[in-house]
């Protein structure tokens, strides 16, 4: 439900150079620390990272901003980040903000 606090959690699956991050919960203003303090350092050591959005029901503008910041941070590096399993209504929001154009359509797998 939209109003209820649904803190972002994640689980990791590491396979050689490939990191799978399964996100669970809302990507919103409260996700800031998790993204910046926990996930970004983790991503540093991998060449291929996928963010699985299967269990992300809601996003807010801060969350979108975090996502963009995340991608921009790794734009110059060797790490390739992809996003998968985005829910239909969440993807609608991505499209409204033209995020596929900003990040490149190929990041969505």
């Amino acid at each position, binding site marked *: 439900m*939209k109003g209820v606090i649904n803190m972002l959690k994640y689980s990791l699956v590491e396979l050689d150079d490939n990191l799978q991050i399964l996100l669970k919960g809302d990507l919103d203003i409260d996700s800031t620390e998790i993204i910046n303090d926990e996930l970004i350092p983790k991503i540093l050591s991998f060449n291929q990272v996928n963010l699985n959005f299967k269990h992300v029901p809601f996003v*807010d*503008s801060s969350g979108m901003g975090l996502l963009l910041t995340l991608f921009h941070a790794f734009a110059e590096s060797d790490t390739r980040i992809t996003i998968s399993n985005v829910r239909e209504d969440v993807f609608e929001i991505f499209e*409204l*903000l*033209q*995020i596929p154009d*900003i990040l490149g359509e190929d990041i969505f797998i």
Partner: protein
Amino acid sequence: MEVKIMRSVISKGKNIMEAIELGLNVLGVEQNEVNIEVLHQEKKGFLKIGNKLATVKLSKIDTPNNTTASTDFMSLLNIIEDDEKAFEILPQFQESNQVIALSSPNKIIVNDEEKEEKKEAIAWVEEGKLFVQNTPTHYPVVSIDKGIEVKLNGVLTKELSLILSQNDTVEIYGVKEEKETKWSVSMDSNKLRVTLDVEPGYQLIRTIRDTKPSRQIRLVADKHKEPFNTLTYEQVIQAMGSLQVKYGFNHSEIMKAVETLKKGSFEIATGKESMNGQDGWFETMVKTHSEKTLIEDESGKINFREQRIINTVDAGSVIGVVHLPVAGRPGVTVTNEPLPAKQTNPVQLKLGTGVSLMGDKVVALESGRPTIEKRGRFVKVSLLQKLVIPGSVNLTSGNIRFNGDVTVMGSIEENMKVEAQGNIVVHQSITGAKVSAMNSIIAQQNVIGSELTAGQNNVFIAEMGFLLATMSEQIDKMIHVINQLMASSAFKSTDFPTIGLKPLIHILLERKFKNFIPITKNYLNNFKKGNHLILDEEWFEVSRTLERLFLTASKEITTLEEIIQLASNVRNLYESSQTPAESVSYINISSATNSQLYCSGNITILGKGCINTKIHSEGMLVIDKVLRGGEVYAKQGVQIQESGSENGTITIITVPRNQTIRINKAMEGTTLIIGNVRKVIDETTHFINARLNTTGEIVFDYL
């Protein structure tokens, strides 16, 4: 469907067998179905002369009624109908006296030779019935016109002519035709009118004309068309129901439509049109007095003209009244929905200095000169005070910026700036200074190396307006996208109270609205360059907000309301930029040298003249003495005493294509540009009235 029952036939052939075969073919039967009677054997003559053909008579065995004709020998006479088979046989009988009796119910060949009885063969129509009388040898012929049906002995015939005997049972009918009533109901796009189109049907009755008895008669039909209307009231109501019509029924029209016998259109339901209201308006209550200014009359002479100038008022006087808009009256569609009246617009009142709003009245707070600036719906009322500078405007006095009229008793010195909301009157000279007034500038002595601007700079405002339009559109779109996001099921707006909308705007500006930042920066830059020409606070307010919301990365919380307010302000500003100001501005100076003059009204130079000066007037330019060098433009025409010089100083005079340039003495170097057609004067010409003719050339009508 042809009903042809041939019962017997007489046929001839080279021999009997042939004759029988021929007869069988004609009858369409086998040998065992007929009785054969040999009438003649063949006779062979010498060398085929005197040959006689074999003749047989074949009669169908089961024929019930072998009519009298088959047993009679009748001579060949009239063949009424085209019958292929008859022609096949008949030529073979040309030499004989015998006749083929093709006993079909619709064809009998009559023998002329035997007239045994005095009784005549006749037929006639009486009261729509056919009567037939025949003799043993003669039968009447009846031809049938279109539209008449005939049943012969109970069978409908397709033939166009009949030979009838009195034993036949003949029924004749005039064919009836019926056309359906056509109708349709339609509603106009405004849902204010429902139209019923009706085309009544008709019944066409044919009566068969009576005829006098005669051997050959023709059955002729008299047509009688009777219109009838099958449309019912219930059908109409039902049709209207399916269109959801619930209001404005015109019952009398429906009745007329249901009863009409002529094609017509009927308005069976009418809605109520909305009535437009009245926009709000500002009523000026102050008196004006007339003042003389210089203007040119029809004959081309410079004359004084009366101009109304608003008087000064006392404190507490009513300057004007704001009238509220009168709302229109909504209408009703035929589907019983309200039809809103056109939106009425109120006056957008802006109060300047020295005035206050009491209810609907604008009142002066102190004594002074009221100024009312109107731009479309926008009305700005200010009370102008008068500032008198007893000496000159210089480093000692400092720059002057005053919300009223300014009178400088001395001069305005180099690098000084004087800006006034009202009029600026300078008693002495203006040198190397910038002077701008919302109304008028009057300089009684020389203007040298200075910039004078009177009236709002409409060109600048129009340019800015154009940029505003683009920004307004973009901001509206942004608000739309934000609303879409907020309505989206997966979007949370819970962080808005905490961080505001700036982060979201930031994302939008990154891609979706990536053009917005460059456009806004462009606008703000241009605005900074020219904003000394604008004294209206609204412009500055909008610029500040644009900068704050979109160009700075401040931490403050931006709300959606703020963005909506900005959108509204930008839109208003754009609209105000598009309507020209109604104020009358002018510049009246004695002379100008190396200066720039801009005015949204007339410019008049009555003293020594104008040298090397750039002039732009949205009204008329009148130079009483000399124009030498420089470039001048006047939207409503130019009148100059003397232009150019003996040395051929290039002096450019431009007017729009539909205006004229009048010069009493045009010397070498004078360049006239009307529209985009250019003409250079290479030798002194007097009294020219230059204009563009129909073929696009500059011609002189000499005064």
